[in-house]
């Protein structure tokens, strides 16, 4: 037998549960709404997109907009450039991070803590401050407007070093000692013991940095001039300007944005748990 009060309590509980779920659902939809609007706008005709009041969905989806966009600018080339440079950069991050994190955690040498402190301090740096001097340095190297300019100027990730150091510190010392007794070199210990054991952290920062590099805008905007080397973000901005930034060709601009955004959304939905792990778990105490 249930008392009336208990029943009322249950009902209240149920209502609050429904309200909670509803409000979360509404917020989620609002957050992804710009993606949905981008996509439906990309499928509208010129008249539809400029209609007021706006229609939510196009009367008949204009898939041809995507084809037209693709013909107006070499988006496949832009996507290739972004994927290529981002992949090369992430590969460099893996190498530079692994070696540095190993030295910082496993080797003893003078100024070790100072060195680590300096490197971590650069994480707090507003990077763009270095852009003018870096631009000059790149031009002296003859690397302006080249792939290697984009790649090598991004070859280190302090964020990655920070994450890798944390997980290297958790590798049991007995394993390292045992390997040393067997005569293993530091090189072997790093690549045969540490790297396999801490692979998840490499995947995590690899994905996050890939995304950051794919989305990178200001720095490539400064150092890339030739169209063949445009990264996707620069290509899109150029397309935006050429199609008339003041609303001349919104369907095509939305189609182009969709082309730029979709690969990342797919990548993210497949790999989201790694992102959450890296972002949330990046080692804040407490």
């Amino acid at each position: 037998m249930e008392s009336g009060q208990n029943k009322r309590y249950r009902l209240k509980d149920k209502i609050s549960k429904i309200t909670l779920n509803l409000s979360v659902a509404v917020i989620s939809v609002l957050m992804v709404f710009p993606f949905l609007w981008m996509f439906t706008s990309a499928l509208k005709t010129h008249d539809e997109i400029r209609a007021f009041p706006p229609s939510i969905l196009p009367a008949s989806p204009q898939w041809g907009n995507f084809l037209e966009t693709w013909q107006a600018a070499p988006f496949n080339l832009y996507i290739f450039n972004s994927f290529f440079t981002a992949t090369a950069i992430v590969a460099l991050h893996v190498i530079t991070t692994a070696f540095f994190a190993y030295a910082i955690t496993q080797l003893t040498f003078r100024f070790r803590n100072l060195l680590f402190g300096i490197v971590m301090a650069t994480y707090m740096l507003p990077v763009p401050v270095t852009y003018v001097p870096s631009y000059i340095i790149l031009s002296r190297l003859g690397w302006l407007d080249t792939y290697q300019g984009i790649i090598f100027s991004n070859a280190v990730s302090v964020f990655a070093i920070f994450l890798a150091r944390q997980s290297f510190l958790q590798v049991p010392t007995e394993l390292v000692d045992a390997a040393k007794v067997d005569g293993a070199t530091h090189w072997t210990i790093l690549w045969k013991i540490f790297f396999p054991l801490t692979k998840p952290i490499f995947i995590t920062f690899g994905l996050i940095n890939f995304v950051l590099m794919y989305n990178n805008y200001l720095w490539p905007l400064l150092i890339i001039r030739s169209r063949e080397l445009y990264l996707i973000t620069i290509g899109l901005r150029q397309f935006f300007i050429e199609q008339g930034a003041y609303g001349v060709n919104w369907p095509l601009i939305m189609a182009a944005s969709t082309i730029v955004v979709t690969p990342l959304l797919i990548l993210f939905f497949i790999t989201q748990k790694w992102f959450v792990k890296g972002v949330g778990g990046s080692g804040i105490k407490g």
Partner: protein
Amino acid sequence: MADNIKSNKLSIWDKMKNEKVTAFFFCLPALIPLIVFWIGPMIFAFYLSLTNWDLMMPVYDMVGLENYRQLFSDPRFYDTLWNTLYFTVGSVVPAVIGGLLLAILLQGKIIAKTFHRTLLFSPWVTPLVAMAIVWSWLFNPRRGLINFILGSLNLPVLPWASSSTWAMPVVIIVSVWRTLGWAMVFYLVALDKIPDTIYDAAKIDGATFWKKLRYITLPLVSPTTLFLSVVLTVEALRAFDQIDIITQGGPAGATRTLLYHYYQSAFQRFNAGEAATIGIIILLISGVFAIAQFIISKKYVHYQ
């Protein structure tokens, strides 16, 4: 013969075993780019700020603190400072508070929690350039969806990015949209670490939701709050993409932040000296911010 080579190799490896040599070679791959593209440029920027170089001429003069003097006597510079403060506070505070609220909501009994988390986080992953374009379409004064909704609710229709009053709110909304879910994920991790027993004890004592928030949740997530406000502040100081796409610093300089000013001096007016000077000021400001936030945290942040 084969043995010989092997022993030769071994002796090299023996030398490599010398920790200092190994450490040197292991640090090198990271240190070279760091020095060439990060630390070196930092020092170089300071030097440049003392010159009047135009990025092209082979000759330039040392002008001492002239760039600093000029900047501080330029009223536009103070507008830029104000815009930077406006943008930073406007984009960091809502992202931190909103992130915490979202995380608290998501802690409840939610159906398809992971799915919601993925959706809420997704703005952070997508290229800001592309999404800023989409937002500028949503905020289009004449044909944008947002003004349509405002109009149909009988609310005033706003000129958004084309007015110097409303351009900054647009840029801020886009920035908060991007970082809200990101901040939430940090808070989700922090909330997960709070033991249920603390809340159970508070429940027995009859604590209300607000009391629990004030005396349990807020103190226990304070390290995350500190971390997020520092990182988001640094990020706000280097915000560029959304400003460049939506307003280009305008109208009438209303959204010209320090960083945008820096970009325009260096790469539109080719005044490397002035740009480097603004860069150094950005650097000093972020340093002061970071130190201030850590000092404040000494008082209010509770590490477990």
